[in-house]
């Protein structure tokens, strides 16, 4: 395989022909070698779907690289820019697969019915936890239900309680990830400020869990 600098990668990939074919072949083999390292935490290499996923993501990444070549700014290594594209594609596909059979209808419920109240999975924390933690849980739960909008509450429930990726939340509610992030950021700011004003800054509440 040829060792290319950024300019060589971009120049070779820019024009159709033998050089492009060779560059694509090199990048394909590089991705097929490196991508498994990146995604093995989310999908075991022993999983029957693993090899197909690597192959599909590699193929899609190469197509995106060709179509987005002009957006490479050249601040870092070209290969790392390509890896970043592959990571986003692979993890988004894994997120979609993991949640595809799970109903998250409450995300679509609008404020007209008041939405779904936020609830930690149990009023009682795990047996080993202290009464202090139980009180914090009630306090936070109450603050979320009183201070946040139905939409903010539902998204927080999905992300914090159910562990739904923001990307998947975005897909379900027909928004993009930036919008979901912004919605949650506003919710966090509001909650933090409310807890602070009530005399319970999150930093101090957190200390209870580090005991």
């Amino acid at each position, binding site marked *: 395989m040829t060792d290319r600098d950024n300019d060589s990668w971009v120049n070779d990939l820019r024009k159709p022909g033998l050089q492009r074919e060779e560059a694509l072949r090199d990048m394909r083999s590089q991705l097929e070698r490196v991508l498994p390292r990146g995604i093995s935490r989310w999908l075991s290499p022993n999983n029957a779907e693993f090899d197909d996923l690597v192959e599909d993501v590699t193929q899609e990444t190469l197509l995106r690289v060709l179509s987005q070549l002009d957006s490479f700014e050249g601040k870092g290594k070209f290969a790392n820019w390509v890896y970043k594209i592959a990571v986003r594609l692979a993890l988004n596909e894994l997120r979609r697969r993991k949640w595809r059979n799970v109903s998250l209808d409450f995300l679509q419920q609008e404020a007209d019915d008041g939405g779904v109240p936020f609830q930690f999975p149990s009023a009682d924390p*795990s047996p080993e936890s202290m009464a202090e933690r139980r009180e914090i849980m009630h306090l936070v739960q109450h603050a979320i239900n009183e201070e946040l909008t139905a939409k903010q509450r539902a998204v927080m429930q999905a992300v914090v309680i159910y562990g739904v990726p923001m990307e998947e939340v975005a897909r379900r509610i027909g928004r993009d990830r*930036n919008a979901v992030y912004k919605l949650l950021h506003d919710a966090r700011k509001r909650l933090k400020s409310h807890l602070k004003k009530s005399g319970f800054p999150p930093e101090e509440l*957190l200390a209870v869990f580090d005991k």
Partner: protein
Amino acid sequence: MKRFLIWLKERLVSKGKSDSMLANLMRMLAATKDKELACDDVYAMLENFTEAILRGEPVTGLMASIEQHLEVCPDCRDEYEALLKMMKPA
């Protein structure tokens, strides 16, 4: 939807996860800033940030803002960790 919630509740309660969820939420709130970078801003700089981390550069200025985003955004955090693994010499 109700059936799903009941199933989920049982599954989570059986594992006693409330504590860690609450701690996780408190961690996110403690790390929350008035001004934060959005996911798209972080994505645009993710490989440069990761290269700088691998070079052992100090996390200041814009890098600190990216790091703060990674503390409160599980999706970007996962992408950063996957990219870090790919970029680290084998």
